[in-house]
């Protein structure tokens, strides 16, 4: 796993999807995110790396306002999705989260059937007019989640009966089913074995064609493998942000260099 070689990828579109300006996050008195400015591009995989507690997950959860569920959390600054401020009082976080899907660290399928897991999002957002349409959405989502072939014969089986890697791909398929524009992934592979990890990584690379994917990861190898852009967080600061290849080969900041060479973190 010491292969730090970076595969150069073509970035076809460089349209900004999410732009954050001067974002500050406080947990009560604790200043968790300090003045972060970042532009996340469409149809690109952006990786957030950094040592534990550096704020990368916190920042990720700002992008779909999941931090709203934490009472003591306060967000300042401006985050724009396609030019619209997502913290505008007129924005309903529920509507936002339908556009910005999320995959969590631990696979968390609902204790329902595989079919119902996928169908839940489309149902609550009214994406299907009838059962046939819903069936179609479920199949398409499971195919995009690269898990269709494994579960097509047992859609009625509980989602929790799948293996860890399958559960995580089910969760990705579930997130995709609501037709989001952005997909946030919070350490999606940290609970998976290497084989399941490589399946999920492959899937992430495929998802890039349709979505803007933001992934938080502890593994620098993973960031190098799947992302085109990388942001390095340290102690709540966004230290460096740029092309993945450049971050891993010619980092500008000494802290980035220390981290990727294993001296801090």
């Amino acid at each position, binding site marked *: 796993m010491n292969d730090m070689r970076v595969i150069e990828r073509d970035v076809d579109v460089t349209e900004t999807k999410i732009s954050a300006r001067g974002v500050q996050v406080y947990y009560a008195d604790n200043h968790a995110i300090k003045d972060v400015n970042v532009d996340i591009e469409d149809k690109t995989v952006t990786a957030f790396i950094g040592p534990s507690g550096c704020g990368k997950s916190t920042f990720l959860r700002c992008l779909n306002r*999941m931090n709203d569920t934490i009472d003591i959390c306060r967000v300042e600054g401006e985050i724009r999705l396609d030019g619209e401020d997502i913290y505008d009082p007129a924005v309903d976080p*529920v509507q*936002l989260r339908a556009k910005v899907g999320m995959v969590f660290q631990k696979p*968390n399928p609902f*204790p329902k059937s595989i079919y119902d897991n996928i169908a839940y999002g489309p149902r609550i957002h009214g994406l299907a007019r009838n059962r046939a349409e819903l069936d179609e959405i479920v199949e398409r989502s499971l195919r995009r989640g690269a898990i269709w072939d494994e579960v097509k014969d047992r859609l009625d089986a509980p989602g929790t009966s799948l293996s860890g890697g399958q559960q995580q791909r089910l969760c990705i398929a579930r997130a995709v089913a609501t037709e989001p524009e952005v997909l946030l992934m919070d350490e999606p592979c940290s609970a998976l074995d290497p084989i399941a990890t490589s399946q999920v990584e492959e899937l992430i690379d495929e998802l890039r064609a349709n979505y803007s994917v933001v992934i938080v990861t502890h593994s620098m190898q993973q960031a190098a493998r799947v992302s085109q852009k990388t942001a390095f967080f340290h102690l709540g600061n966004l230290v460096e942000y740029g092309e993945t290849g450049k971050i891993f080969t010619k980092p500008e900041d000494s802290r980035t260099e220390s981290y990727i060479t294993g001296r801090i973190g």
Partner: protein
Amino acid sequence: MTDATSIPAAPEDGRRKSSLRTLDARTRRRNAAEKRFRFYGLAAILVGLFFLVVLGVTIVRSGLPAFTQTVVSIDFTLSEEDYAKAEGQLFKTKAYEQIFNAALVTSLEERGVEAEFDAKAINRIMGKPGATIREHFRANEGDLGTPVQFELSAASRVDGYFKGRVTRDGFVDSRFLQASDLDLVDALAEAGIIRQAFNWNFITGADSGVDNPGGAGIGASVVGSFFMMLVVLFLSLPIGVAASIYLEEFAPQNRFTDLIEVNISNLAAVPSIVFGILGLAVFIQFMHLPQSAPLVGGLVLTLMTLPTIIISTRASLKAVPPSIRDAALGLGASKMQSVLHHVLPLAMPGILTGTIIGLAQALGETAPLLLIGMVGFVARGYPDGFIAGFTEPNSAMPAQIYTWAARADVGFYEKAWGGIIVLLLFLLTMNIIAIILRRRFERRW
């Protein structure tokens, strides 16, 4: 093997090499403590089981006699002539009684029963049958002139004689029963006129007067308890669950909600009689709801049950993993949707457990019912009156049992035990329904 010599030798500073096969003192002590602990646990369970068995056996042994009743069954024919004559008199039931007694004597002589008895002895054995007979013939005039079988319940002491409660040893004559009556009773039993029958009246009937344990039934108070449980269930479950969901999922964490939390926990520990007097003051004296009604009883018990349900519901909501909430919210479900679609179904088994504990407590509660007047009573117009519903005066099982246990006639003692059996069966039914429901909600995750 060349570096075998570099392995350090056993230290010489007092530590001896020990074998794994011999236990050192510390391990022995630890093992002994563990064995002791297991023994204590087992002993506790056995003691519990022993008392459970004692309880069960006592209840069944003392309570079963309540389900049988000694009855005097007699074929009796009333001619139209006698009917007209009896109705024409001033003391009508007395007249019927005389006709009946005369008929009884004739019928006994026909069967060859030879015993000394008079009208008083008949009264002592089977009470005063006049009223029962008159009522029957007034209601069914068509029965006049044809033989009608009457089943009259025997007096409490005669019933006790058949159940072994009253014996000839050390029998003292009283105005209730005399030794000569026992001879007559024996003769009647031999002739098949007095026998033991299953006491349907105990299951379906209402309470009776203090001198008539044979006529006492638990039926009315079973219905009363049932109505109360309905009120408790339909008020405390939705209110309790709604309050818990709000407190657990929506309420901001501040001093005010902390205060509410502490007070809910305190309410669970308030003695039930306090709720009773509160119900008397608020529901009856202030709001003028009818006294002795299952509606008021249900309201009082709802107040008592709410804290139990809220505490257990909050605990089971807390036990639902937060990742499920995150998953729903992350898909764009609203808070309400995430709670109703995912959290609540997962918390349902715990909520049902809390509900059944609360309902069981409420079902057995006596003290508050005494204060709002739901004690045993002779039902007027039974069975039409009480069945009318939630606002008619009624009793509840535990209050009825309490009333019976406090009465002087020993005949009521077995009724109290019998009432306990019915109460436990009611509780068992409730629990089985709850367990079946819980099974349906239980899911793995």
